[in-house]
C-alpha cells in the first residue's frame, strides 16, 4: 500500500513527502493542518488499481474544511463506483511542487541479481526507453555515471532558462535505494515513480513508490 511504501522508503532515508493516514474527515483535516497546505488526498485500497477512475484522488486541497469535504466525497464516490473494494482509509500527503520527474527502479536479474535503473520520466522512459542500468550495490561512481548515461541528461544541466537540477540529491537516492533493494530480499521489483527533482540545492522527493513482493 502507498502509505506502507512511503514508510519503507523513509526507513531507508529516502526523502518522501509528509503524509498521514486518515480514517475520518476530522482526522483528514487534522493531518492536513500538521502537514501544511496544499495537500493531496488519495484513497487507500488493495482492490483499486486506478484511483482517479473511481474518484479516489483529489489534488490541491487548500484548507481543513476542504480536506473534510473531500474526504467524505472520496468515500462516497468509491462506495458508489467500486462497492466491493476494501478501503483502508485516505492518504493525506504533502502536495509537491512541480519539478523534473525521473524514475528510479530496481529488479532482480537471473544472472546479475539486484539491478538498479534510472530514467527521466514521461516520453523518455515510455517511448524512447532512455534508461540506464547498474548492478547493485552501487557506488557513488556508478550512480554518477548512470545519470549521465541517459540521453535526456541535458534536462539535468539546465533547460529553457531553468537552473541545473540537484544531481547530488538523485545520487543520494540511487545509493539508498541500492542499499534497500540489496537488503530487502523479498522485494522482486520496485519503482520510485516519479521522483521529483528540484533545482540545485533544493533536493529531490520520492512522490510515489511501488514494491512487488516475491
Amino acid at each position, binding site marked *: 500500500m502507498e502509505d506502507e511504501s512511503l514508510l519503507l522508503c523513509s526507513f531507508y532515508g529516502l526523502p518522501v513527502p509528509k503524509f498521514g493516514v486518515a480514517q475520518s474527515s476530522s482526522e483528514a483535516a487534522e493531518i492536513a493542518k500538521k502537514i501544511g497546505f496544499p495537500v493531496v488526498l488519495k484513497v487507500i485500497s488493495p482492490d483499486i488499481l486506478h484511483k482517479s477512475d473511481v474518484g479516489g484522488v483529489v489534488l490541491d486541497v487548500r484548507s481543513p474544511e476542504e480536506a473534510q469535504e473531500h474526504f467524505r466525497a472520496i468515500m462516497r464516490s468509491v462506495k458508489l463506483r467500486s462497492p466491493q473494494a476494501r478501503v483502508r482509509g485516505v492518504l493525506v500527503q504533502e502536495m509537491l511542487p512541480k519539478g523534473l520527474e525521473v*524514475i528510479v*527502479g*530496481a*529488479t532482480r*536479474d537471473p*544472472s*546479475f*541479481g539486484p*539491478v538498479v*535503473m534510472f*530514467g527521466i520520466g514521461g516520453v523518455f*522512459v515510455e517511448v524512447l*526507453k532512455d*534508461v*540506464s*542500468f*547498474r*548492478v547493485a*550495490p552501487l*557506488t*557513488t*561512481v*556508478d550512480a554518477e*555515471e*548512470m545519470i549521465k*548515461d541517459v540521453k535526456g541528461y541535458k534536462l539535468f544541466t539546465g533547460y529553457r532558462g531553468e537552473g541545473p537540477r540537484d544531481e547530488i540529491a538523485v545520487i543520494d537516492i540511487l545509493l539508498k535505494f541500492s542499499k534497500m533493494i540489496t*537488503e530487502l530480499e523479498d522485494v522482486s*521489483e*520496485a*519503482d520510485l*515513480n516519479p521522483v521529483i527533482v528540484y533545482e540545485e540545492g533544493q533536493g529531490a522527493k520520492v512522490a510515489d513508490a*511501488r514494491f*512487488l513482493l516475491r
Partner: protein
Amino acid sequence: MGLSGELYRLFYPRSIAVVGASRDPNKIGHILLRNIVSGGFKGKVYPVNPSTDTILGLEAFPSVSSINSEIDVVIVAVPAEKTIEVAEDAGKAGAEFLVVISSGFREVGRIDLEKKLVEVARKHGMRVLGPNIFGYLYAPSGLNATFGPREIKPGRIAFITQSGALGIALMGYSTVEEIGVSSVVSVGNKADIDDADLLEFFGDDPNTSTIILYIEGVEDGKKFLDIASTVSVRKPIIAIKAGRTDVGAKAAASHTGSLSGGPALWEGVLKQAGILQVKDVETAFDYARLFETYSVAAGPSILVITNGGGAGVQATDTLAENGVLLSEPPEEYVNYLRTFLPPYASTRNPVDITGGAPDEHYYLALRKALEIPGIHAVLVLYCQTMTTSPLKTGEAIVRAVEESGSNKPIVAGFIGGSEARKAIDYLIQRHIPAYPTPERAAQALAALYRYARLREAVRRRLDLLRLSGEIHSKIPGELRREILKK
C-alpha cells in the same frame, strides 16, 4: 594459486589425447589432430580410436586409460552420448582437462547430459571446456586444437567466443587483417569453464595484452563483473555483446521489469566492469590493432594533421561523438607551420596542410608535433591525390616517428585506392595503427581515451567497494543493526 593457475595446464599441456581422432581427412577428429600436429606443439600427442593403429603417423590407442602415460588435456570429438564414457575413462587416467568439441547438449535441450558430463568430470577433479565448441588455440605453446584454420598470425590478442562459426571465421579474418593473436578460445555452452575463468587467466597471462570477448550471456553475472573489473584495470577488454537490439519486452508489472534484461542492462554491466563495448567485429579489430601498440595517452591534447578539409571534419565529429574534443594547437607549433606551409593552409586544429602537400610537409608537421610537449597524440589523415604518393607519405610518417623517438600515440587514416591500402599495410608493419577511413582512425584513437576513462572509473569503484567492505567488517553485527534501524 588462483583460477588462472588452475587453467595453466590447459594452455601449457605436456600431453594431449584426441578422442575421436580419425583417418578420414573430412572428419573433425582428423582436422583437430592435424592442426595440433602441424602447429608446432612440443608436447606429446596421442590419437584415441579403437578401430585403427595409426593416424597421421602417430600410434593410436583404444582408450585414454590405455595410453599408460600422464595426460593433461583430453580433446573429445565423439557423439554426445559417448562423452560420458570418455569422461570416466579420462578421469581414471588422471587427465586434468576435458575439451568437449561434441555438440548435442544444452543447445538441443539435453541439459541432463551436460549436467552428467560436468558431474563425472568433477568427480575426477577435471575441468571442462565446452561442450559444443570448435576448440582452442594458444600460440605461445604452439597449440592449435581447433578445427578452424591451420595458420594464424601469432600476437598478443586473446579472443574468447561464445559463437562457434563466427569464431572460426574471425580466425581467418584476423590473419587477413594481420592482427596477431595469442589465443582463441571457443567457450560454447560454458558448462564449467566460463568467460570469467578465462578472463582471469588472460589477465595474468604475460603473452596477452588485449582481450576480445564475443558474448551472448553469462550464467554467473556477479562473478563475471567481479573478475572482469580486476582484469580491465590491467589490460583492455573489448566486448561484442550479441543481441544489442533485443528489446526483451517481457511482460512485467513494473517499468523497471519491462525495461531490464535487454541491451540496456548489459550496457551498464560492461561499463561497470570497465569493458569497452563495441557494436561490430570491425570496430573490435580496429581497437585491437590500436591496443597492439598503445594503451595510454599522456594527456588530452590530440592534434589532427590532414591534407583534406572533409577528412578533418569527419575525424573531428567522430572524436567528439566519442567524448574527445580538439583544442587549438600551441602557438609555437602554429608559428613553425607558417614557415613552410602555403598561406592558405589552416593552422587551426585540424591542421590542413592542403591537398598538394608533399610528403616532406607531412614529415615536418608530424616531427614538430611529436617534439612539442603540449601535444599528446596525433591523428594523421591523408587523402590520395594525383600529385602525391601514399607510400611516400607513409614513409615520411615512419621517418618522423623513428627520428623523434617519441612514444606519443600516432594513428593514421589513409583514404584512397590500392596504393593507399599498400601504405596502410606498410604503416601497420611498422607498428603504426592505420585505417582506410578518417572515421575509423579517429574512433580507434578515441578508444584510448575511452579506455582511460573506464579504467579510472573502475579503479575508483573498486576502491569504494573495498572501503565499504572494510567499514562493514569492522562494525560488529549488533551495532550495524542499530545503525540500520536509524
